[in-house]
């Protein structure tokens, strides 16, 4: 049942990415909802779930992107895993920790995607891609992730659900 729910969540995220992400566009920068999902699952549960969700949503995204199959799968899986590992390294996952880790993960994934997508970019083009897409997108991801994380945290708190990291501590 839970597996089916996760698959539905991944499919819904990829469909939302392909259809509604233009509504979230700011200055031609739009969020990678699949990356945000992988990171949030990692933050809110653990690295294993982050890995599984990241791999699944990445594979589905790969089917709708021109790059080679497996690029998004690996990157999203890695991002979900590292987000999950964050819950081990800090006593409590706070909004600021989410912001910081998401920025780093988004920059890493974006840089890898950039190299794969445009291996023959010259210096000025690479600089433009980094300054006008990569960095704004990382900041956008962090804000969105932090907002959703805060919302879920509040809802969990209201319904008395204990955070994974709290329970361990």
């Amino acid at each position, binding site marked *: 049942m839970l597996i089916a729910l996760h698959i539905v969540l991944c499919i819904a995220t990829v469909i939302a990415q*392909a259809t509604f992400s233009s509504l979230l566009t700011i200055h031609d920068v739009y969020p990678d909802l699949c990356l945000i999902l992988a990171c949030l699952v990692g933050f809110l549960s653990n690295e294993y779930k982050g890995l599984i969700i990241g791999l699944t949503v990445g594979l589905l995204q790969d089917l709708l992107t021109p790059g080679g199959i497996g690029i998004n799968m690996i990157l999203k899986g890695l991002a979900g895993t590292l987000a999950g590992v964050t819950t081990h390294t800090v006593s409590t996952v706070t909004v600021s920790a989410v912001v910081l880790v998401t920025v780093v993960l988004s920059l890493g994934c974006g840089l890898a995607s950039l190299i794969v997508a*445009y291996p023959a970019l010259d210096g000025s083009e690479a600089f433009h891609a980094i300054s006008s*897409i990569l960095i704004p997108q990382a900041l956008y991801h962090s804000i969105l992730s932090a907002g959703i994380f805060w919302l879920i945290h509040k809802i969990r708190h209201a319904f008395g659900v204990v955070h994974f990291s709290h329970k361990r501590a």
Partner: protein
Amino acid sequence: MILEGPLQVVASIQDSVGETWNHYIALQHVWEENQSLKIEIQKLQGEQNRLREQAILAMDFQKLLTYQATVPMTTVPAHIIGRKVSNWYRAMVIDKGAQDGIHVEMGVITNAGVVGRIVRVNPTTSIMLLLSDPNVAITGMIQSSRDEGIIQGTPQGAIHMKYLPPLSSVQVGDTIVTSGLTDDFPRGLHIGHIQQVTKAATDLFQSGEVTPIVDFSKLESVLVITSFQPTISQESQPSAEPLSVP
């Protein structure tokens, strides 16, 4: 005379009772009726908007189908069902795939001009890269001077025409069409206009910035070129068969 006074009193009472009845008591259901009518109006407005949207889409698609019937090539009409799946590719998803005869490297056009190229085919969907993506390069030609070059996108989303001959008389505003040298597009399809021409002192070739004829942000349906007949000029080119020497 005696009855006039009481009759007037009774008549005025009757009037006021009738007025009260008509204005208040008989209208007690008007509010509910008004509410239901408002809901009905909202529903009809929604329906009207939906039909208007369908009519616009149908009109656009009809234009595309009319164009499809006039061009000397076999095309498959397709709708755009997804866009902006990744920040790193200027790509769109269409609702036709391998089951509809779509293959990788096929050209994509609209009735206005060239859109891009198919780069991935799934059974029922395909991914096309737009002209503005750096991974797409097609051969173009200045329509007036017949100078050829390579049309390629940049990460910024601009489109450049590269490798124009150094002595080319290319001007701002010149029309660019496909040259037909590659297998994906026939000769003469509109690509765009030259917006700016640049040639540094150390450059061997001229290059130009191109304004595409197609507004990619408003694309809703496209035609995928599955096959095309060579144009007259291509047919009349000399064959590669060796000459027989008597």
